[in-house]
């Protein structure tokens, strides 16, 4: 129950923040995410499952309520910690960006309110108990992130901003139509009152979310948006926003898995191809942020794969979301650290041996890539449960499938360490050793450490207890 009040803090903080000076505003906003983080963690520990009514509407909209269960807590705590850390990180980074753009530091007021709303809307999205509410928060996050790209992005930011807006809006609208079909069928959009999702509705939601996730084909919007967004936005967009499509699919699956079960094989094949395809694409990128964007596409393939693999696959989806969020936010922040230290350096061909000059970022990047590769970080469990899901659903008979999924994980490890080597190791180029603000590296380590201690008790114990309790059941 307390958690609901805690959830409002980010909105309040983002409204108050513009009246404070940048430093105080940042601390306030971060704190407003850290408090619900603790709340979500506590709620996860208590295995609490609650539904707290907000308002009721007549059918076909139904009740608006806050849905607290281990799944939303797991997503929620991820959103909170990443947002809080990225908020700290924004302080020096955005001031640097404003200088670069010739804007005054007053711009920070505008920035922080949009940023706060962006992060808070994602937090509310995962606790939404009604599909309309969920859609509203999805749209808020979409508009705010669009504004941030449009206002503060790099390169041809207006074009990219509009590109991003159109793609994700198409995704959102398809999903909305799907929801409307659901509403007409069930005469309610409250998650607890929906009993079935028809194939048409599922198809619309699925296609919409595959665009947002994104799968192969629609994935092409993502490198543009992630690369040209200001880095704190990239560090929320890729780790948190796109993965929320996975969250929505997961919720839909838990209501009615008929569609996924009926089309399990084609979806799985598509997901695998998409993941391997993007994994190979990573090797060819010369722009660090674009590289990370392709890796996101590959990682989101895991989520789609996990979705097809029964109970343990679903647990894998949740853990994969967390692991990717931790890892990718660290990595985008390292990319931003390089941009801030070396006047917009993003071209990997001009990097090499950077560990010499920015050891703290280099080590952080290692933590990030450990998450992506599933080495000694929470991602390990994501991979574990996805693999177990494969056996549950397909037994050992389908050798090709097994090897393909194993290969995806190998590929992730390969591109991770290949990238590390290319950027941070090797003979150092002639560069200066920059002075790095602590705001630009400490948050990365905090996330990294969290991702490592998450594989040990008590965190992993309570996370899996919770997930098993909600997802549980048969395959």
């Amino acid at each position, binding site marked *: 129950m307390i958690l609901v009040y805690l959830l409002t803090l980010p909105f309040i903080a983002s409204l108050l923040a513009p009246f404070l000076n940048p430093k105080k505003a940042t601390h306030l906003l971060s704190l407003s995410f850290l408090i619900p983080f603790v709340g979500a963690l506590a709620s996860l520990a208590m295995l609490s499952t609650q539904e707290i009514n907000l308002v009721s509407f007549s059918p076909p909209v139904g009740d608006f309520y806050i849905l607290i269960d281990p799944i939303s807590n797991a997503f929620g705590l991820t959103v909170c910690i990443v947002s809080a850390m990225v908020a700290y990180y924004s302080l020096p980074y955005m001031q640097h960006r404003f200088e670069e753009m010739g804007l005054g530091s007053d711009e920070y007021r505008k920035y922080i309110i949009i940023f706060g709303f962006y992060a808070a809307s994602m937090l509310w999205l995962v606790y939404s108990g009604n599909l309309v509410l969920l859609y509203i928060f999805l749209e808020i996050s979409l508009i705010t992130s669009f504004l941030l790209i449009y206002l503060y992005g790099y390169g041809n930011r207006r074009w990219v901003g509009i590109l991003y807006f159109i793609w994700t809006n198409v995704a959102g609208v398809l999903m909305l139509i799907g929801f409307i079909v659901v509403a007409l069928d069930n005469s309610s959009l409250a998650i607890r009152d929906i009993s079935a999702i028809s194939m048409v509705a599922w198809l619309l939601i699925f296609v919409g979310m595959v665009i947002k996730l994104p799968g192969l084909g629609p994935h092409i*919007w993502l490198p543009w948006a992630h690369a040209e967004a200001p880095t704190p936005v990239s560090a929320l967009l890729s780790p948190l926003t796109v993965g929320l499509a996975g969250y929505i699919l997961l919720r839909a699956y838990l209501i009615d898995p008929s569609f996924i079960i009926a089309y399990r094989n084609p979806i799985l094949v598509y997901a695998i191809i998409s993941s391997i*395809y993007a994994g190979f694409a990573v090797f060819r990128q010369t722009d660090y942020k674009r590289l990370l964007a392709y890796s996101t596409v590959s990682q989101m393939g895991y989520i789609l794969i996990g979705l097809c693999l029964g109970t*343990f696959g679903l647990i894998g989806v949740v853990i994969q979301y967390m692991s990717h969020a931790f890892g990718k936010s660290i990595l985008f922040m390292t990319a931003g650290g390089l941009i801030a230290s070396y006047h917009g350096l993003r071209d990997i061909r001009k990097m090499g*041996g950077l560990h010499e000059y920015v050891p703290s970022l280099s080590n952080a990047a290692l933590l990030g890539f450990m998450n992506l590769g599933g*080495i000694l970080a929470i991602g390990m469990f994501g991979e*574990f449960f996805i693999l177990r899901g494969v*056996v549950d659903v397909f037994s050992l008979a389908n*050798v090709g499938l*097994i090897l393909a999924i194993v290969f995806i994980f190998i590929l992730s490890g390969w591109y991770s360490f290949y990238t590390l080597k290319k950027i941070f190791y090797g003979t*150092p180029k002639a560069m200066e050793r920059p002075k790095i603000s602590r705001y630009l590296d400490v948050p990365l380590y905090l996330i990294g450490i969290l991702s490592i201690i998450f594989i040990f008790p008590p965190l992993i114990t309570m996370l899996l207890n919770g997930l098993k309790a909600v997802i549980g059941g048969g395959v």
Partner: protein
Amino acid sequence: MNWSMNEILQLSLMFLVPVISSLPIAIAWIYRPGEEWARKLPYLSVFGLFISLLISLNILFNVEDGFYSYPWIPSLNINFVFVVDYLSRYMGVLTALIAFLIGVYGLEYMKDDYRLGWYWFFFNTFTASMLLVVYSDNLLTLLIGWEGLGLASWGLIGHWFRDDDEITFVGEKGRKVGPLELSWSPSFGGWRAISTIRFGDMPMFFAIATIFALVGTLDIHSIPWHELFERIGFFGSVFLLFLFLMGPFTKSAQLPFSEWLMTAMTGPTTVSALLHSATMVAAGTYLFMRLSWYIQPWNAETPALAVVYSVVLFLGLISAFYGAIVALGLRERKVLLAASTMSSLGLMFASSAASFWIGQIAIIVAFWYLMVHAFAKASLFLVAGHLIHATHDRFCSGDRVFSRKMKAAFAVTIVATLFLSGIPPFTAYWVKSAMDGVMEHLAEEGVILPFYLLVLVSVIYSAFLAKFLSLNFMRGEKPKHEHVENANLMKLAYSIMVSMLFILLYAVSHEHHFVEEGHLVTSFAVGVLVTVSYLIALYKPSVKAFSRVGVFLTDRMYLPFLNDFIIPKIGWFIAAVVDYANRGIDYFFHQAIPSFFDWISRLIRAVQKGYLPSYLRIVAAWIMIFIVAIAIAGWYGWP
């Protein structure tokens, strides 16, 4: 199941203390790299290793055999389960002791290094991970250690990431064969190591997940292996076991995954000694032994096991043979030792695989060989490190004059090579004799080849060890540079290390099996052969007439082409295709579709020009079309 808190506490301290004691220097080095006080902190790290050693000794002497467990994810029946048994008792002490001694050596060897924080953090993390692997009974717990090994190995191989010092490379700089330059930098060596290891770890991870899915437990001792194999049938069992063994194969650098171990020699010598000879690479064979210990393949006539164990047997022997003859051709000190390590690992695999036919004794033999090899090879590596410091040369060089200045190193090398090659009556002789016995038993079962392969490998093995001794201290060239320094800590460390071989000799002489086997005629004959080849190689360490063969062997039979040419070419080809596809998709969505809309919009706007004549023309055109349509319709009699 034992829930005794005392043992759990000891074990967790053993894993945690090394890591924690290395954190101060790791953190200090981020903020104040290279300051005088920070250079004192490694003593703390080594102290952490010492604590681990004490605990492992306590476990050796005072802890009962059994399984000790601590809850991890009880709801899924996954717990931290540790095992104390014959294998882990000795392996634990071996790991902790070697790590501690090399830690002491490293205090001096690495004292002027530019990246001490990194070095000690990964060195100690490695030790902790290795101990975790050794004592784990739960496969997922083991996997955490296993991943730690891979990561630490990557970090330590690539330790000198600047790639600016020729002494850290492997291969002659600038030597090109076809499209490849056969020379590898530390950062490249690290990447090669981790990419090979990931290639094996992920299939192994899948196998672990499969076991979990099928039997619901991950504790090696409580998995009903034979039921499992029956359930999944012949094909399933073979598939599962091979996926599982991909982990040990890549970690222990068996063919064709051996290349990473050769280029792992770009790391500091301490790392080569600890990770790439004594412990980490042995973890693969250790895991195989542990599995076999509990699968007990000798108790079951499962065809799947027969296939798998035969393959492991021959893969091990072939790798052993390959490693041995490659070592015969190599002249780089550390790479020679690396190839010989690979060869020894092959023998360990082969011997433990023979357990399918012979029984548990084959595993025990392999395990003893592991221990002898670990101490001897670690000593040799430490000597090699000292030599590299003293001569500033990666390649074998050193004559009698030089060896007089390096008395301790010389003596240690003599002892280590004598004790390792299987010359009677030194330690390895007894163990190798037992191994000969194992392979002879196999011959009685109708598998003849392994025995001859083993003898061949042993003969070559002793030859290149003698070559190493001879080329570095006796009949080698005069070193180009000589910087003989007072390296007391280093000498102390490798002297203690090598003296462990005497303790092992003592222990071996109390094992009846080894003593009996050592007194057999066959064993003695092999021993004589080995001795002869040792003496010949000592006298004539290099033969000019064979120099072309030597080049072929030095280039490791061109196996690097697999790692550095064939596989990357395939990968880059796919990546290029993907890249073109991306451009196509990008063009389609972001150029073609928008311009299609542009075109339509222009078309529509083209109509609305605002001039009356053009509107009239459009109206006239529509009327014309209408009339023509009516005419055609009328022609065909409509309606």
